[in-house]
């Protein structure tokens, strides 16, 4: 078993005792069975149980452990320990721009509010058929790259526009979800959905910076989805 010492520099904040957040240096020994950053964090927590972070599935599908790793947003459970150079300190901070509840745990209320604001559910007012609504494989394919979002917030909290206007700009995750329903042939609320977004803030604060695409742990592309929404809006007025 190859053991090695990992050095961490972790953002700490406990509102009960700390007036301000600070960075803490801490080391932990990992062995060959610890493959991902999350494995190391679990060991760290065994050493100091006051370190707080969210985690659940440890395989990149639940979206709990989004954090800022060496300056870039990502999931701790997918960050391979072998990609961190030996001896170099790993800096962990909470997702940027959201209020910090404690340590690496941020308050995601605003993020989910924006997600909810796009009415993330299928709207279809036809009488329910007895069997499934039909959809061709090609129509279904339109949803690929959209429905897989895990709501980890890595994208929205990497988006400068979302930092400045989290209350007005829907953000990449929400807009991806909006297009997921627009693109669904079973949904009938396309016009309402476009109306809901045709505003200088909600959609058009997107300046195609593309930080969202850069960090998405699922390899999704919100910019592409946003572009397609804009297309539909243009097609609607001409």
């Amino acid at each position, binding site marked *: 078993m190859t053991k090695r010492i990992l050095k961490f520099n972790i953002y700490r904040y406990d509102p009960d005792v700390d007036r301000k957040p600070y960075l803490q240096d801490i080391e932990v020994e990992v062995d060959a069975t610890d493959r991902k950053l999350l494995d190391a964090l679990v060991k760290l927590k065994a050493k100091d149980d006051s370190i707080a972070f969210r985690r659940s599935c440890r395989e990149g599908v639940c979206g709990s452990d989004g954090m800022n790793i060496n300056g870039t947003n990502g999931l701790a459970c997918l960050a391979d320990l072998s990609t961190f150079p030996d001896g170099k300190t790993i800096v962990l901070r909470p997702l*940027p721009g959201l*209020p*910090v509840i404690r340590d690496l745990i941020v308050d995601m*209320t605003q993020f989910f509010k924006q997600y909810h604001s796009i009415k993330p559910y299928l709207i279809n007012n036809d009488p329910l058929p007895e069997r499934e609504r039909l959809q061709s494989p090609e129509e279904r394919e339109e949803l690929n790259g959209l429905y897989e979002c895990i709501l980890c917030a890595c994208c929205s909290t990497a988006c400068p526009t979302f930092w400045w206007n989290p209350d007005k700009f829907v953000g990449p995750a929400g807009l991806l979800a909006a297009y997921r329903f627009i693109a669904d042939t079973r949904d009938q609320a396309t016009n309402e959905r476009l109306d809901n977004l045709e505003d200088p803030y909600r959609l058009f604060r997107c300046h195609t910076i*593309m*930080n969202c*695409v*850069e960090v998405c742990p699922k390899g999704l592309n919100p910019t592409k989805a946003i572009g397609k929404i804009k297309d539909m809006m243009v097609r609607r007025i001409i």
Partner: protein
Amino acid sequence: MPELGRKRPKYLNLIKIKLPIAGIASILHRVSGVGIFLMLPLLVWLFELSLRSPESFQELQAVITHPVLKLILIGLLWSLLHHFCMGIRILLIDMHMGVDKAQASASAKMVLAVSLPMTLILGAKLW
């Protein structure tokens, strides 16, 4: 339920958050745009000098030899070049070209690779 009025810190240290190359090109687009806007009166004035009369044309030649103005003009030149290249990149992305992660960062690199050397070459000429 978040307690009302409770002030929580936010982590938003712009120096420590790594900005990808596409993000850098993008913020420079804004910086260059604002730069051009601020220099608009100067631009219009130079435009007027160039066209009002042969004398003013001479005056313009003299004015732009001033080192301070030269520096400003080089800055402006970069702004125009970067804004121009980046604008084309954005238009292409709007037309769904180069929206993938790898392509987007490649095109951002290309923008910088064109606008910076061009500024140097044209700037050297101007100087």
